[in-house]
């Protein structure tokens, strides 16, 4: 009964719903990415997303949660005290969402740990070797995601102690996944026969994915308030506002520069807006969210349509261009627009008289970029040496679905 007294049941209900919303984002991401690849590879992308949901769900319970949020060791990593959820019970934790069961906080965080490695998939689609992919993801989740989550979110994590603001994971999730994606494709190389831009095989599928990402993102951001409170409402409104602003911005840029508005442009833009508002969502006003969305639309458009072409790296579905750049825009914008009038547990940014916050956000961004770049480089090299990261050229031409999985996504006759 003592436990029950500490629990607020409105908070419990909201966080549980939010957890389910974040969970659906990974299968949804599968649709978003699946629609954008060639049809001979659609199932490979869906499988990669779904198996991450299975694998990380287990990793998190066994040791991932303990590494990320377990009792702090020097600000760098969580201890192993919480292995197998030992000591993680129904009583609320003092710091982590202190009005809901500790296990609920654990599974809410699990869904973030799941979607982050899944985001990277978009960069290496259509050529990755499944066994190499699987080993890389397990190592990456354990040695890159878990420590970084600890630094930024855990009690006494060193970036948290500096005062970095990351409401729902701009640094830990989007910068981290985006930078890893870039390093990964620089090492992996381009797809075969992709000199000319290829049209996505099923845009409606991709739009279905983008639409449900927007939906799930309410859980992602507003759920990160950890309670059914007014900060959650702010995050909810900001999420919607930034997505709308960035989708619209992308369409206008498309229209001005390429002379036509496009569906894929709007879908990409809205995701960029969702990415950028993530770290800021619980700290800024709706009008700031509008500006952040516009900035995300402009910078991500620039990187996806100009910079990628200029440098010629094959970040196939623009994980770096959307999540990496959108994440950086969001992290820095948080240092500009954050205000205590929205969330007194946060801080003020540059525009509210606290330039120091921008410096902290900048520092955090640089640390995240450096850490995920170096670690991805090392892990890639190790897995490439042990298992290999690429399929045979011939298999790549025939398609991963048939050669790696002995399945096909679509039939020509019944």
């Amino acid at each position: 009964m003592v436990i029950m007294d500490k629990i607020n049941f409105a908070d419990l209900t909201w966080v549980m719903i939010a957890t389910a919303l974040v969970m659906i984002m990974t299968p949804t991401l599968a649709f978003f990415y699946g629609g954008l690849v060639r049809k001979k590879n659609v199932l490979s992308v869906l499988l990669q997303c779904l198996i991450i949901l299975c694998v990380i769900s287990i990793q998190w319970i066994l040791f991932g949660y303990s590494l990320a949020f377990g009792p702090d060791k020097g600000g760098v990593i969580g201890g192993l005290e919480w292995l197998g959820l030992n000591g993680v019970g129904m009583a609320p934790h003092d710091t982590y969402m202190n009005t809901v069961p500790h296990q609920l906080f654990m599974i809410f965080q699990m869904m973030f740990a799941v979607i982050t490695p899944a985001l990277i998939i978009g960069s290496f689609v259509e050529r990755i070797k499944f066994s190499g992919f699987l080993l890389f993801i397990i190592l990456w989740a354990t040695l890159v995601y878990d420590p970084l989550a600890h630094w930024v979110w855990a009690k006494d994590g060193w970036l948290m102690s500096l005062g970095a603001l990351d409401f729902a994971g701009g640094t830990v999730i989007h910068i981290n996944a985006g930078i890893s994606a870039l390093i990964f494709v620089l090492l992996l190389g381009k797809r075969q026969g992709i000199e000319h831009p290829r049209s996505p095989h099923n845009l409606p599928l991709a739009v279905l994915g983008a639409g449900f990402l927007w939906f799930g993102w309410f859980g992602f951001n507003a759920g990160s308030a950890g309670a059914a409170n007014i900060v959650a409402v702010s995050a909810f409104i900001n999420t919607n506002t930034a997505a709308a602003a960035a989708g619209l911005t992308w369409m206008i840029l498309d229209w001005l520069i390429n002379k036509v508005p496009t569906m894929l442009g709007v879908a990409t833009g809205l995701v960029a807006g969702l990415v950028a508002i993530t770290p800021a969502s619980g700290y800024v006003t709706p009008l700031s969210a509008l500006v952040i969305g516009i900035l995300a639309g402009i910078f991500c458009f620039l990187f996806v349509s100009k910079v990628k072409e200029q440098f010629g790296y094959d970040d196939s579905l623009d994980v770096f261009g959307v999540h990496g750049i959108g994440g950086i825009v969001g992290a820095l914008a948080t240092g500009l627009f954050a205000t205590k009038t929205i969330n007194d547990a946060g801080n003020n940014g540059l525009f509210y008289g606290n330039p120091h916050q921008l410096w902290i956000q900048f520092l955090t961004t640089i640390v995240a970029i450096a850490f995920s770049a170096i670690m991805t480089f090392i892990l890639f090299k190790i897995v490439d040496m042990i298992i290999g990261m690429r399929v045979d050229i011939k298999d790549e031409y025939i398609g991963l679905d048939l050669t790696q999985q002995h399945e096909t996504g679509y039939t020509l006759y019944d």
Partner: protein
Amino acid sequence: MKYVVAIIKPHKLEAVMQELDKEEIYLRTVSEVLGCGRQKGVTEVYRGVKEVGNLLRKVKLEIAVNDKFLEPTIRAITGGAGEGEIGDGKIFVLDLKDCIRIRTGEHGGEAIG
């Protein structure tokens, strides 16, 4: 006049089209087909059950040409689609009786041009 039908690997279509462009042969109809040769197709697995003899995805090219363009067409297709492997495909050459351009009602070689 000849009617050239070629069955090739899907990922070779782009290379074949580039070769055809080089030979200044711009008319083509492409369709996606399923087929198999002596390898008897591929095996797929659904819920643990193997399905033997599933057909492979192929691309079918159809090109109507005047006689002097026949050799360049064959050259372009073999050049673009050939890997020296089983499954590279086949080219069939048929005599073409007539060709009519719907817009003008022209017949024969001129209509193809």
